[in-house]
């Protein structure tokens, strides 16, 4: 446990991905196979549940620390992490020196589900009394925590790949899917060669550059294809050796997350690799990203989720056909092959072809561009007809022409302390616009968009201008004005303002504006009328 706790604290401390990979790699090179297996279980989000009630655990910790529950809650508010709070308030006697391994602790925790509450209490308290503060913190994470330390599956895969000198795509394939640390071993899972190890290997995505200057600078319109820029998840669909793989940008193998697309394994020819966008889709048209968002990051795709946010694939490129890499063919030739595949598709509503936008003059695009939102698109993609499919973000052949975010100027009215890196600082803000009755009406919460320096300044202001307290929320003197940007806007019965904005964030701090000069609810509703 000492070794794992140290790894955990070190990972937590750095935000450099290379350093994180190095730390994990060293762990994978030095820990026992059993411990490695458990570490991998944690880092890939497979922590088993030990059937403990968080409220009970809080109460046991507060009782042990001899403090009332409200003081425990206040402490939790300040720390922003339950496991850490408990590790800090528990009394220490300086004799905490357990040498149980990570694996042994997992077996220890494995006894919990069958215990009575009283036995659980004793079992957990006994563990706490044997562990140092850092170890108690990590133990609490094993017990009931989420592992938010900036270690994505991709980084774990990289570390494992380096530690075992294996190709990272192969490792990504090996760690995906269902496996249980109690039923397999590190050797079997990671080191044994699988039949389809190489079949899953994706191509690096070709990424577009934002367009510079006016679109007409691109020259002859006839040299270019134009498509809508879809608002979904960039994905690569691979069908090789009779197995289907879905990769998303960020190089995550996410085949399991999109069961709607699994039918492709029975219709695509072997040796096909497609590039496109996974979007949520209803009645033959794409839905705004926030619908898709409801199922991203979910571990269990319940029937309800699948019904409420069904997905479809919008294909726009093909990199491999009949097992041959065709990235060196021109955009036009690849498009023709893609259209051929689409033509033979039985379910075209789930496998769409990204349509080409018809235009003769650049000025027509100028007219169409403002209608992007109505088409549930974020603007245009402009692709040179004779360009090859390249690697990474390259200038010249693929351009994106995005719409500006919608925005209003709003007043900061509530603030709450952040958690994790931002614990102790007021970083979660609620913004309001002026209603008809001259009152401020909250309409959006935003967390990001300020620099660390600005966060410090806003925090300084808030701490000196608190009007009221409601639990963790502070009402702040309405004085600071920010420009709030958002990607979409919808009617909402759940919000007092009657509207819900998508992906709100702070664009900039309008130090030049007074609260009275902020926008009104009427202006927000005007935006809603335009885009709903």
């Amino acid at each position, binding site marked *: 446990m000492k070794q794992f706790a140290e790894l955990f604290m070190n990972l*937590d*401390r750095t*935000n450099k991905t290379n350093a994180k990979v190095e730390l994990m790699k060293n762990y994978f090179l030095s820990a026992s196979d059993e411990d490695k297996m458990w570490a991998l279980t944690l880092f890939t989000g497979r922590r088993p549940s030990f059937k403990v009630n968080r409220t009970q655990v809080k109460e046991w910790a507060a009782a042990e*620390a001899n*403090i*009332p529950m*409200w*003081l425990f809650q*206040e*402490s939790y508010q*300040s*720390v*922003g*992490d339950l496991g*850490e*709070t408990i590790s*800090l*308030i528990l009394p*220490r006697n300086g004799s905490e020196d357990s040498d149980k391994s990570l694996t042994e602790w997992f077996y220890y925790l494995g006894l919990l589900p069958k215990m009575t509450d009283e036995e659980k209490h004793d079992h957990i308290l006994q563990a706490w009394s044997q562990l140092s503060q850092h170890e108690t913190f990590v133990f609490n994470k094993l017990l009931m925590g989420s592992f938010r330390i900036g270690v*994505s599956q*991709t980084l774990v895969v990289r570390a494992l790949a380096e530690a075992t000198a294996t190709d990272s795509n192969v490792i990504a394939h090996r760690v995906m899917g269902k496996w249980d640390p109690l039923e397999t071993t590190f050797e079997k899972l990671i080191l044994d060669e699988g039949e389809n190890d190489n079949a899953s290997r994706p191509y690096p*995505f070709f*990424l577009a550059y934002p367009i510079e200057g006016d679109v007409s600078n691109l020259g002859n319109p006839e040299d270019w294809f134009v498509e809508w820029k879809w*608002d979904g*998840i*960039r994905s690569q669909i691979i069908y090789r050796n009779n197995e289907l793989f879905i990769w*998303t*940008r*960020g*190089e*995550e193998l*996410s085949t399991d997350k999109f069961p709607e697309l699994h039918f492709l394994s029975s219709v695509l020819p072997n040796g096909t690799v497609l590039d496109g966008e996974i979007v949520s889709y209803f009645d033959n048209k794409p839905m705004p*990203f926030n619908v898709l968002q409801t199922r*991203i990051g979910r571990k269990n795709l319940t029937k309800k989720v699948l019904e409420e946010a069904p997905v479809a694939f919008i294909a726009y490129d093909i990199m491999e056909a009949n097992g041959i890499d065709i990235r060196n063919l021109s955009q036009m030739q690849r498009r023709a092959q893609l259209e051929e595949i689409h033509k033979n598709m039985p379910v075209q509503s789930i496998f769409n072809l990204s349509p080409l936008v018809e235009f003769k003059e650049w000025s027509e695009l100028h007219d169409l561009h403002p209608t992007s939102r109505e088409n549930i698109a*974020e603007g245009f993609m402009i692709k040179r007809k004779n360009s090859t499919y390249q690697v990474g973000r390259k200038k010249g052949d693929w351009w994106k022409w995005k719409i500006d975010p919608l925005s209003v100027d709003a007043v900061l009215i509530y603030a709450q302390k*952040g*958690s*994790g*890196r*931002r*614990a*102790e*600082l007021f970083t979660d803000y609620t913004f309001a616009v002026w209603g008809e009755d001259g009152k401020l009406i909250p309409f959006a919460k935003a967390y*990001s*968009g*300020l*620099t*660390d*320096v600005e*966060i410090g300044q806003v925090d*300084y202001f808030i701490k000196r201008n608190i009007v009221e*307290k409601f639990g963790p929320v502070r009402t702040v003197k309405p004085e600071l004005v920010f420009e709030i940007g958002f990607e979409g806007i919808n009617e909402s019965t759940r919000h007092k303002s009657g509207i819900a904005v998508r992906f709100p*964030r702070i664009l900039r701090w309008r130090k030049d504006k007074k609260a009275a000069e902020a926008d009104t609810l009427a202006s927000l509703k005007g935006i809603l009328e335009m885009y709903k």
Partner: protein
Amino acid sequence: MATQSLLQFTGKSIYCSEADAHIDPWIPVDRAIITHAHSDHARWGSKHYLAHKDSEPILRLRLGPDISLQTVEYGEKFVINGVVFSLHPAGHIIGSAQVRVEYKGEVWVASGDYKLEDDKFCVPFEPVKCNVFITESTFGLPIYKWQPQQEIYSEIDNWFAQNRLEDKASILMGYSLGKMQRILKGIQLPDGPIYAHGAIYTLNDRLRQAGFDLPELTLVTKETDKKLFRGSLVLAPPSVDSSTWIRKFNPYSLGYCSGWMALRGAKNRRAVDQGFILSDHVDWQDLNTAVIESGAEKVYVTHGYTSIFSRWLNENGVEAGEVTTMYGNEEETEDRATGEGPESEGIENKKDMSPIPDDPDLKLS
């Protein structure tokens, strides 16, 4: 008119109307009694200052060489308009004092900032019996529990030794006033030169001139040969981590000494390589001890976790009220106060760490 309290909280100072004297005023006044020289307590512009004699060199450095300043010893009584004042050790930093105020048999103590652990540089805290005790609550939550300082010094020693092995500079950040002197008395000092940022160098130099037993430091200048920093110890105020000043020490490891380092969030936000939990304020346990030892029947809780700590006291049979003051922003004010030397150089280079995902392609990554 109802009888006024002996000390009143005006929002800009702790005021004794009977003596027309202000404790740690934030506005210019005629007569200011200063608990200690940190810049959130010692403000410029008052006509007359009174403080402990050990505060003098720093007050003159920071508020001006020509301020009208009267100094006293700990325990020395001075009477203003029938009100009896005396200063008593607060153990916070050099010259720090609790202000004892006695009038017609009633005793109030305004403790400023304080800690109970003896830091071997300033005179250690002494409990003062009183009727009313005014206390800070900077770390007034049960999550704050300091380890004995010797353990922290060992951590610093080990960190420095490791960096020396790797031929890296060890940049140790902490408040110029208080923390740095304490560290210099606590850690194992290298045989070679100890490098210091201008803010720390100037203070150290002034204190040495005033006769305090501190080692000599070497000022880092633009001309200092960068090779000399390899494997060396460099002392710096907390603001440098966002400046260009720090680049010349590459390769380096960055350490920060502060009570705030007890929380992961704070440590990660600071993006330091090592956080050392070393504070010049009382932790939860010592805060409670200090209140009990004062014997006060009424406690006013100022800067920090005021509402939480006063509720805790009320529930535990000590009548307490919370008070809003301007103190407790040591971090912000101290960073600006020590403006000697190239302190604020390069602040604009602060990294923007806010994650604005401007590329929807990246949504899942």
